[in-house]
């Protein structure tokens, strides 16, 4: 069993000179299942790399425990944790050949020469590195170097693989193909993998589950689709998705016998969004209270003409549009918010044009601005 369990894990960097003490990781609990591909994702400085380095044993733990399988490894040296790590800058030994880079860990563990040769050969053929074994890292491209770094990890057949932003140094095209290779590798090796990235596309496409972190705390842990469709809080809603979820600040009001979301409490020319039965149920006890209305760009529809607009249509002004080829991002101004809508590429909108929108409210979310949590039934 190679599950990894983090319990109340904390890391505080002590004050140094003029810099005050800094708590990078704040008592997190996380269970990474055996053979799972877990992605830690979050903005810079959220504590994801620190967490990974603590799992690797490269960073001392201030508080809490880390267990790999049944064993607590808090005081175990990195080499004895049975892990392998792939670094952002590859960390290949520049004076060694590809073969020696891959064999280094095995030599230190006193494997027999034949065994080393067999393992390196196996990894090299898995990664397409057979013809490069005699080359030094400087004679390889970025993608090849990354594959050597992965090869160096897999020859040891460790319990847990750790990846620290391994694709950050690759160009966009190479990133896509290497992403797929790592996912394939996870399936073929059937090992536990913990992958740190700030790129949500990597997180969404690679992870069995995603752990979203912010300011040293875990915001949500769930499958990629669950995180996307049911964000636990405002941070996740704003972080996952590109473009992110539109978040409109306002209040819940009553209009006739229907509940509506009133942008900015009606003090400016804010929009009014009628709430459907589900959202009304959620907002029932919050009439007159502040609330955040969240809707994904793909759940905003453009109505063809003002005349065709139903009563629930929302007026907006086109700010600008970004044609992406397969789709177009349309930036719109409402009363006091800027919205983005994802529309088919055929749509053409000139800036400053008045238009009508319809929100698919059955897919919208309500958040409590105080607790930042999503309001659920």
């Amino acid at each position: 069993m190679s599950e990894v369990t983090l319990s109340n894990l904390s890391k505080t960097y002590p004050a140094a000179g003029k810099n005050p003490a800094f708590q990078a990781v704040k008592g997190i609990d996380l269970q990474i299942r055996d053979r799972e591909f877990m992605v830690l994702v979050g903005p810079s400085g959220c504590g994801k790399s620190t967490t990974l380095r603590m799992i690797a044993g490269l960073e001392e733990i201030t508080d809490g425990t880390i267990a790999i399988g049944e064993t607590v490894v808090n005081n175990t040296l990195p080499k004895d944790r049975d892990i392998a790590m792939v670094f952002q800058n590859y960390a290949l030994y520049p004076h060694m050949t590809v073969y020696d880079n891959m064999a280094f860990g095995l030599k230190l563990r006193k494997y027999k020469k034949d065994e080393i040769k067999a393992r390196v050969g196996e990894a090299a053929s898995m990664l397409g590195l057979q013809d490069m074994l005699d080359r030094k890292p400087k004679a390889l491209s970025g993608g090849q170097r990354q594959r050597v770094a992965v090869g160096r990890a897999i020859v040891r057949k460790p319990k847990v693989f750790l990846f620290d932003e391994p694709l950050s140094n690759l160009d966009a095209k190479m990133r896509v193909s290497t992403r797929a290779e790592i996912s394939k590798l996870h399936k073929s090796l059937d090992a536990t993998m913990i992958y740190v990235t700030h790129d949500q596309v990597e997180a969404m496409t690679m992870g069995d589950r995603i752990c979203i972190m912010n300011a040293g705390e875990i915001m949500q842990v769930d499958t990629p689709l669950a995180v996307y469709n049911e964000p636990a809080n405002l941070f996740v809603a704003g972080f996952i998705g590109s473009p992110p979820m539109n978040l409109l600040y306002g209040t819940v009001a009553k209009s006739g016998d229907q509940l509506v979301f009133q942008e900015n409490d009606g003090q400016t020319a804010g929009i009014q969004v009628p709430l459907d039965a589900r959202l009304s149920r959620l907002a029932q006890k919050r009439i007159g209270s502040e609330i955040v209305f969240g809707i994904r760009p793909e759940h905003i529809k453009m109505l063809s003409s003002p005349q065709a607009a139903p009563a629930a249509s929302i007026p907006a002004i086109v700010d600008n549009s970004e044609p992406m080829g397969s789709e177009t991002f349309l930036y719109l101004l409402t009363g006091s918010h800027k919205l983005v809508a994802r529309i088919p590429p055929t749509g053409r909108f000139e800036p400053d044009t008045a238009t009508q929108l319809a929100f698919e409210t059955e897919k919208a979310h309500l958040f409590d601005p105080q607790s930042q949590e999503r309001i659920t039934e």
Partner: protein
Amino acid sequence: MAMITIAPFLMTILLSVKSSDEVIHDFWAPPEEIRWDFFAQALGFIQHSIFNSAITASVSVILLAFLSSLSGYVFARIQFPGKELIYLLILALMMVPGILTLIPMFLWYKQFPFVGGNDWLGQGGHGFLNTPWVLLVHYIAGGQVLGIILCRTYIENLPQSLFDSARIDGASELQIYRSIALPLCLPVIATVSILSFVGIYNDYMWPLITIDAPNLQTFTLRVTQYSSEHAQEHGPEFASYIIGSIPLIIVFAFGMKYYVNGITKGSIKG
């Protein structure tokens, strides 16, 4: 500017093949007869001292380069209490002119306890004086100051992930030093080695006050002795300068690539 630097060397070559009469009476003129025999004469007199200097410099450089890189690694990558204070003291040593510590240093080596017939108070014998150790220990210890600073700076600028990766691969600190830090430090080690070799080989003051025995004399001592003993024979004297320069030229010829590389890397990586 290059000519200003190289002219004295060319003049030395010229003077080494002119008779003493010509040197005295017609200093700037080309030689009437090229006296290659001066080189044979000089070689006979200084060959043993060149050997002494070359061996002293080589052994010192090997050991000081090894110790500098090891200490540089420790200062760069290992945390221990008082590290920065010790490093600051080492840095401070660079600021003290060598001439100020010459006499205390001489007494220290002379009165070193239990060495060279000394008792536990350092009395009764000659200590390290007149032994190869007085040169080797002094050069190895003294040369490390610059070496440690250069090696520490260089190793600190190597990516931390290389060392982390080696640690996860299963390497101990000593294995990381030997397999990762040392090979990657070769350019800066070459720089330290060449600078130290030239400094040790050319040193005059320390051997002058610590070495008496003719069989231990270094090249600089021997050549000045020759000048004072044969004041009228300028040709062999200059020839000995030329011969004495050969080990330095060899060291530069083999190490120049690494030397320049090391200096460049140092300047880029701070």
